[in-house]
């Protein structure tokens, strides 16, 4: 009766992450460069006899990392937890805010200057104020700092995504006499989804940075930021650097996870 396309019938029908298309050279090249830099650093510190308080050798840092693996992991858990909660809350606020601003023009116009202001002021600068607001014994201030840093890029990206709804899709919804909430659910949010996750990927490192730096200004101990300041204060520079490495790994972890999530959610959004 009806013919099925013979060519298309053989195609893969499972969704795939575009990550499978990444070539080895793109991963190996930066790794190689990193190794060279570490090697050069080690040689430089060794030959030029640089004092540890100026720049400790990678080997010395590594010694501290292995010796303090437990405390570094604990610190990363504390800081990571603040960053994660902040990121999730900030993402929710950003997406909801963008959904409202995308629906009502006047909200967008009212919010624009506020968002622009939030985008330029360093949010961490608010940390001391927040500590006095919520008390220095809790992590609330840090979570808020991380949350606000995330909410802004997520809001801006989501709003951009909402504006990408195709005219055909809008016509289709009108033709189906869909209600405003149905339009948002069926077309607007799915269109914006990849943009949301792009915003989230950009914001992920901000969340870690914000949660970390906020610790410099006080609050409960245990996080990586506090550990960095206290080991630097007691002149244990290799240990301070060991905590810094922990922070780098934590930031990378956030970045890679959000990147994978972003790739997953944009897998069907390749231009048709």
């Amino acid at each position: 009766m009806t013919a099925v396309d013979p060519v298309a019938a053989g195609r893969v029908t499972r969704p795939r992450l575009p990550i499978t298309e990444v070539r080895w050279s793109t991963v190996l090249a930066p790794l190689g460069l990193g190794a060279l830099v570490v090697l050069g650093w080690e040689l430089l510190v060794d030959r030029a006899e640089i004092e540890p308080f100026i720049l400790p050798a990678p080997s010395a840092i590594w010694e501290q990392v292995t010796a303090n693996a437990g405390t570094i992991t604990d610190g990363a858990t504390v800081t990571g937890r603040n960053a994660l909660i902040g990121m999730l809350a900030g993402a929710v606020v950003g997406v909801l805010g963008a959904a409202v601003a995308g629906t009502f023009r006047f909200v967008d116009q009212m919010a624009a200057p506020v968002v622009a202001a939030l985008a330029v002021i360093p949010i961490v600068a608010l940390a001391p104020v927040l500590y006095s607001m919520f008390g220095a014994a809790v992590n609330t201030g840090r979570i808020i700092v991380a949350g606000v840093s995330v909410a802004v890029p997520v809001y801006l990206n989501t709003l951009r995504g909402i504006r990408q709804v195709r005219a055909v899709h809008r016509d289709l919804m009108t033709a189906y006499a869909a209600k405003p909430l149905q339009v948002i659910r069926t077309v607007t949010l799915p269109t914006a989804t990849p943009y949301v996750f792009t915003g989230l990927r950009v914001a992920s490192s901000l969340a870690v940075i914000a949660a970390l730096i906020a610790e410099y200004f006080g609050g409960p101990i245990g996080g990586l930021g506090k550990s960095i300041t206290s080991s630097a204060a007691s002149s244990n520079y290799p240990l301070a650097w060991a905590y810094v490495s922990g922070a780098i790994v934590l930031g990378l972890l956030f970045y890679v996870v959000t990147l994978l999530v972003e790739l997953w959610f944009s897998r069907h959004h390749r231009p048709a």
Partner: protein
Amino acid sequence: MSTPAGMEPAISVTGVDRVFGKGRKQVVALQDVDLTVADGEFVSLIGPSGCGKSTLLRLVADLDTATSGDLRVFGKGVRQARLDQDYGIAFQQAGLLPWRTVAGNVELPLRLHGASAAMRKARVAELLDLVGLSDFAKSHPDQLSGGMQQRVAIARALAESPRLLLMDEPFGALDEITRERMQNELVRICAETGAAVLFVTHSIPEAVFLSDRVVVMSPRPGRITGIVDVRADGLVGAHDRTERARDEEGFFRAVAEVRSLLHGTPMPTLAAEGLEK
């Protein structure tokens, strides 16, 4: 509205104008257009680019508002007809939602209008069978060829068994072979559902093969220059047509008639002109 059901024309357009912009930049997309599409009738709109075919279709679909004139769908105002979901629509671009599976796209109108899950499932299976895509229910649009995507869009337009189908160059992006196959399928689907169709196309043979009547339009300002009744040329009604209609004499006669209307020249002698294409 006093006429019994089924007697109302599917579409009636009277004295419709559509003017875009104002002042010097004003574009008269449609001028004084009158058109009636009977219930169950297949009518094609053909004409050069920019003559207002899409505009007319969008007015009927209530996606745009006429500057003046009256449009009715099954005797109701177009807005009411849209709210009552009296028509199904397919655009030139398939317009599928890329994040939904083929099945998810086809069931979209049913879902929006609150059909139960069981009812949706049964209907989707039926529709995918109709367009020959049962094996692709779980695929995503980006895994389908252009022709297959278009078939999904047609299945979606048919989902709620509308008595009127509006189609804007649905086969425009397809190659000739797929196109003819889709035309055959469309004839079969229309015969099965008995729907009236308003069909926009750029192709004369396509218009003639599919239609009961072909409406020829001219641009600047967009207006109807003539209507060719294909049945009067000796072809059977659109619903009873088979592939063989493309080889019949009446087909070529109608093609020649449409072409001479499009070019604004008087009917040439048939034998020479008709066999060209």
